[in-house]
């Protein structure tokens, strides 16, 4: 199993022993179908840790709604993004 899994992870560019151990832990004791789903979820987390598009859209809508009120809080660390 290790070799096959390692090949898959290598193809995705995320192969490392720590991740293989994490997958084993996540899948341990689960029925086969749930094991596949758990492994898939973990790999998706590692391959694409980007923000959920629906969550991002909700965040942007919320910001726009707040700004439209004309009064908002500020981010004192916003300057850190100015590079």
């Amino acid at each position, binding site marked *: 199993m290790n070799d096959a899994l390692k090949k898959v992870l290598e193809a995705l560019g995320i192969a490392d022993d720590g991740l293989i151990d994490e997958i084993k832990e996540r899948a341990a004791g689960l029925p086969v179908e749930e094991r596949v789903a758990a492994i898939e979820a973990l790999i998706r987390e590692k391959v694409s840790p980007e923000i959920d598009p629906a969550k*991002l859209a909700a965040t942007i809508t919320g910001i726009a709604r707040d700004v439209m009120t004309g009064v908002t809080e500020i981010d004192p*660390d916003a300057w850190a993004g100015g590079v």
Partner: protein
Amino acid sequence: MKSPTRIALASAVALAIACAAPAFPQTYSVFDAGKRTQVAVHVGALTIAEQETGSPEWSGVEAGGAIVYSLHKQFSLVGTYDHGFPITSDRDHRNYLRAVGNLKVYPPPTERSATNLFIGGGYMVIDRAAGAESWQGGLGQVVVSHLFADGWGVYGSYIHGFARDELEADVNVAKLGLQHRLFGAR
């Protein structure tokens, strides 16, 4: 009956609490430029590569500044200027201008952290060597910053530039360096 000493003591404690921390998060008008504007400078390494070739087209040392307008605790408008100093004599100086809307995606809005992650979109102009046309186009960027002292941080960023001109290639820009807040809210 309350003694004047007890009343004075209670008043002093109440005043100290009121001055130490506001009871509610502080909010300001979205047009309050005095409260919302921050100015920062940065210096570091910069490399730019064309999408098609992948090989670095230009690399060197950058020094620049940014004006940041914090419109919301999770969103800011940023204007930056970077000057690129070549590290080899066969390369020219470069100027980079960007106008960006930055969305703060880490930490969550209820928290404050030394590490901050921003994603942004906007417009970029790269002024090339004299005689050559400047590159222009939209951009998407990711900035990660780690603040290690009051007003000081280290940053890493990746910018993808989408060429406006069909004859131009998209560009990838990577930056790494030291940043400092000159003034603004803290």
